[in-house]
């Protein structure tokens, strides 16, 4: 990938991600929120590819834009009449939230710009699935098992709570 394309891709997908994010938090209709979120998540997946994280990108598409979005849409359907309600909070709350978000963003940017990051120059473009898989089953075998418990609890919980009683 040439530098220019890489740069262009970054800005395109980056912009898309930001627009998606903005839409997600700003759109008035619920369904638009959901669609903007899909845009943001998909753009993120593309960015993962730019970052040579192909496996993560795939998982992103599968789990996020697939599973999680479906869940969200289900939720929207299961909670009818909510779509029409005023979606945005009072101006004061919005302002306060914006303030916090902006200040936090400023802090992080300041940290990013001043941080003593030790950057490597070597680009890495090898496929990551195989080494990641190895890592997950060797070095990270314990978290790998542990996350299954997390999912199990999520599952049990979701099952029991969502069920009509």
């Amino acid at each position, binding site marked *: 990938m040439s530098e220019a394309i890489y740069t262009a891709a970054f800005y395109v997908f980056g912009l898309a991600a930001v627009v998606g994010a903005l839409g997600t938090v700003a759109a008035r209709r619920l369904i638009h929120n959901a669609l903007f979120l899909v845009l943001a998540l998909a753009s993120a997946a593309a960015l993962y590819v730019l970052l040579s994280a192909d496996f993560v990108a795939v998982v992103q598409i599968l789990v996020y834009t697939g599973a999680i979005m479906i869940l969200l849409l289900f939720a929207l359907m299961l909670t009818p009449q909510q779509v029409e309600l005023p979606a945005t909070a009072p101006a004061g709350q919005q302002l306060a939230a914006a303030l916090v978000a902006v200040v936090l963003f400023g*802090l*992080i940017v*300041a*940290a*990013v710009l*001043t*941080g*003593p*990051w*030790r950057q490597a120059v070597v680009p890495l473009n090898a496929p990551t699935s195989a080494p990641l898989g190895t890592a997950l*089953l*060797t*070095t*990270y*075998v*314990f*978290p790998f098992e*542990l*996350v299954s*418990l*997390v999912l*199990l*609890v*999520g599952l*049990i*919980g979701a099952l*029991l*709570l969502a069920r009509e*009683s």
Partner: protein
Amino acid sequence: MIPPASDLLYLAPELILTLGAFLVVLIDLALPDGRSRRPLLYFAVACCVVAGAATLVLLGQTRAIFNGMVLVDPFAGFFKLLFLAATALVLLASELYVERLRRYEAEYYSVLLLGTVGLMLLAASGEFLTLFLALELSSLANAFLACWLKHQRKATEAALKYFLISVLSSAVLLYGVALLYGLTGQTSLAGVAQLIRGEPSLPVLLALAMLVAGFGFKISAVPFQMWTPDVYEGAPTTVTGYLSVASKAAGFAVLLRVLELTFGNLTGVWVAVFAAIAVLTMTLGNLLALAQSNIKRMLAYSSIAQAGYALVGVVAATTFGASAVAFYMLAYTFTQLGAFLAVVSDVQFAPDDTIEGYSGLHFRNPWLAATLAVSLLSLGGLPPFAGFFSKLYVFWAAVVRGPQEGGPLYWLVLIGVINSAISLYYYAKIIRQMYLVAPPTDKPVVIPGAHGLALALCVLGMVALGPFAGAVIAGAEQAARLMVR
């Protein structure tokens, strides 16, 4: 690299509980519909006991397993025992609640056990990924448990609030982890520390703040405590007890470990912040507790204040401070559970948890009233109960610091002491209600045997910890000293 299978051996307590959690669900499936699920309760308690025995056996071990992801050391062991005791006590006292929702009894036990596994791993994690997952495991379990009485408006509201704040908090925590990772390429607690020595950079400080926020949620420290009263009030009282004791203790365990292992070289940076947080936490908790009329809400604020006192031990930033906090949590386990598990029984006489409802409880069940009274006095830090010794030790830790450790923090202790005096006002309010006010009816309050056993054990803990305070604190200090570094 592949961790050796023998590592599993050191994970025996967690494995036992996990297995128990699965078995509970499986047995539940196997049992016919009409049958009582009560044996499952005793089975779950037995799991805790067996896991506790296993923990005891492993108490002498000091090692890192699974590539340093999990640490097996006395410090973790101490807290594991504490979680197991709390879980067992909560289980024993759950009868009155599970009565109300027979269908999901097994899941309740099972998730409680799984959540405890999360707590145990939280206390034992030596690496941020494991830490995060353990945190999530327990948070999700807690959210579910809070929502478990899903036909109650308050319970679902509590669950929603808990869930949202916990998820946001862990997101913040993760950001901190990300920054640390970015700086060092490491995710192990100790490994990070080696690479962030020297003059701290902005990302390190931001990461520290983010971790503080994340753990602050778990231990209900101001300003990350806002969820606490609502959730404690709304959640089923057994779960409230579990949240306020086990979950909080785990928060302290991991906080201590991270501060010690990861930020041990930056004490100068965080001590002042924690001192401020401690003061705010105890003061705000106490002030707001003064104004409550709902006993659970009041105890919630009180538990915030208690976290403030315990933070005094954290502020000490010494090994003794850590052990004092550990001791505090142990004493607090019995004390706070004694209170909450007594409150559990109010479904029979004060279902809306008002303090009014406790009028003349002494005349309806003197033992119950006495248990609650002793718990409250212990919370207030009156000798000879455990609560006194626990406060003593954390305050002690704050003043025992030598000159090279920053010198004694008498002012902090004085604020703590004044706060605990204030706290007696609202504790005494309940005692007054139970002893000085005429009961609305003479109908005796009867509690199930297992529940009574749990209360008795709490009282025993509160009373017995006094004379053995010395031995226990010595053990705790030994544990803190032997923390894997």
